[in-house]
């Protein structure tokens, strides 16, 4: 590791934001509240683990992920119900052979009875919900995103290990390079780096 940090800076490089490093949870939490109260909107707090109540300190709105999960579950339930119905209970008029389904007549039992089909409906509901949750979470988080100007900083590698970072984006209305730098320093930052892309 080198002892000086020179941000990668090309001719066309643009200032993306300022990255401030913090030593512990207490200081980053306090600084986050200051950033929020100063009216910044486009900023983020990077931490190696979820900090309790950081969403409130950042002024975040609740995520809509539960609604996505619910939709996934309902789609799964509908899919399961259609699957059991169309594959065992009816033959759609004029359907191609490969989609006709097969009607099992066993001991005169009805072709469609809800209790006997509940396990399938349950499993497809769970399966689709799980995919909705995972894909929804990744989508809302804009992941996968393998290119990120923050990764150019060696210092930032510790954001997934033991250090805490506040990054204020340059496109925030309140952003002013020198003032924001001083503001972050006053808020208790250990070190501040410019992020260029």
């Amino acid at each position: 590791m080198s002892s000086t940090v020179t941000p990668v800076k090309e001719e066309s490089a643009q200032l993306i934001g300022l990255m401030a490093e913090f030593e512990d949870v207490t200081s980053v939490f306090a600084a986050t509240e200051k950033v929020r109260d100063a009216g910044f909107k486009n900023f983020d707090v990077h931490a190696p683990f979820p900090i309790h109540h950081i969403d409130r300190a950042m002024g975040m709105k609740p995520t809509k992920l539960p609604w996505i999960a619910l939709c996934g579950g309902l789609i799964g339930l509908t899919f399961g119900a259609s699957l059991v119905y169309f594959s065992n209970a009816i033959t759609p008029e004029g359907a191609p052979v490969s989609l006709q389904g097969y009607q099992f007549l066993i001991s005169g039992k009805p072709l469609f009875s809800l209790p006997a089909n509940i396990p399938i409906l349950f499993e497809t509901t769970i399966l689709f919900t799980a995919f909705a949750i995972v894909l929804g979470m990744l989508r809302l988080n804009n992941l996968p995103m393998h290119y990120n100007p923050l990764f150019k900083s060696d210092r930032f590698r510790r954001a997934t290990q033991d250090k805490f970072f506040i990054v204020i984006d340059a496109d925030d209305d309140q952003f002013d390079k020198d003032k924001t730098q001083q503001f972050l320093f006053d808020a208790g930052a250990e070190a501040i780096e410019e992020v260029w892309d």
Partner: protein
Amino acid sequence: MTTMTRESSFPELPDPDAVRNSMGGIDSPEIDNTSDDPRQRAPLVTGDNDFASVTEKVTQLALFPIKKTPKAWWVAFAAALFLLALLKFTIVYLLVTGTGIWGNNTPVSWGFPIVNFVFWVGIGHAGTLISAILFLFRQNWRTSINRFAEAMTIFAVMCAGLFPALHVGRAWFAYWLFPIPNQMAMWPQMRSPLLWDVFAVSTYATVSILFWYVGMIPDLATLRDRATSKTSQVLYGIFSLGWNGSSRHWVRFERAYLLLAAIATPLVLSVHSVVSFDFAVAQLPGWHTTIFPPYFVAGAVFGGFAMVITLAVPARQFFGLKEIITMRHLENMAKVMLATGLIVSYAYATEFFVAWYSGHHYEQFVFMNRPMGSLKWAFWTMFLCNVCGPQFMWFKALRNNLWVLMFSAMCVNVGMWFERFVITVTSLHRDFLPSSWATFVPTKIDYLMLLGSFGLFFTMFLLFLRFLPAVAMAEVKSVLPQAHPHHHGDDHSSSHGDGHDGGTKDGEAH
């Protein structure tokens, strides 16, 4: 000026060799954190650990250069690979020869393959219990063991899935189990428990993999950021999806994790219930009982916890994880094993009582035949291992003795396999008509395949231990005392009060 800093130099990343040298090896002392004194909260991680040391201890397992891999790992891996080769050999032999190489024969058409299937799918349940149900109950001690318990689940389900796929006879037609549109107009019977099983186990496998992988993304990012070789950086980089520790991401991540736990909980209960329907929906005495779903689920958790202990004790011993997987974790798992063992024992007693009380003489015969018939050795092995084996766990001194703990866990591993053997085979080999009775004789291939499935399980598990984050680092860090903003003083008390919520509104008004 591009950089403002209070420090004179950029902090060096810790040297992995120094970390490894300071790490607790096999001979390092055990720290007792099993006290039940309510005045003191027992530490979840012992020793003088902080975010950096937890990161080091966990990542060094995955980031050892290949040459520096511990010898114990190579020995275990060689043994596992040998067994895996055995499995491959027996599968090829089976595919070219046919199912006649097994001991399965009328009336015992469900021999070892189904016994092994139920055994392995049951093992998986402890992983989901730890990762989902204990999460919902806010049992923070789970953080140290949930990752590898989940890995165990996935590998156990892989072993489980193998057997029914082979048991269908013509394994290359196993895809007929799935509702795929086809020119033969052939569809599965959706009201059959065997098909429910296909859906339950494949959903379980899929959801477990999603849950495991999602939980691992932040830890893969930690590995990416600590990796020194290009290959590891690229590979961990790809699979960590560009995770950067953003708190906006963390909030959604945590919500996703909670939701996954909430759906995995009914799922895990449903999976072994559905497996038990394979038996309970049949008319056969000894199978046709309503106690099966809860009895199977309890048995699955029981056997699964025994397997978690079996894996955790050597893993923490040989890989320097004694301070993260502490004595208290083992103690808690021993207690869960004892409790579920008692439920299983109670279920055994209930089965016998109901057989007697039903006045159904076929049922009564089956339950007399189990402890006294030709397969009584299997019944008594099961009884000794499952009912007596865990009883040592009543005593703290024995629970905290790793040899006794391992002995109990091994008893349960053996006992739970025999339980499935007893259920499957003793009911089938003596059914209603004495003229159709027969003796079940397993062949050598049956035994070799069972042994080989352990090869698959341990190969996968050892690869996991070696190359992936074996402990959920981010979660362990979040339960360290340093993770709470109030730890260093109470200067943020206002932030959780009313004034704070007002601040949130102001923030949104812009």
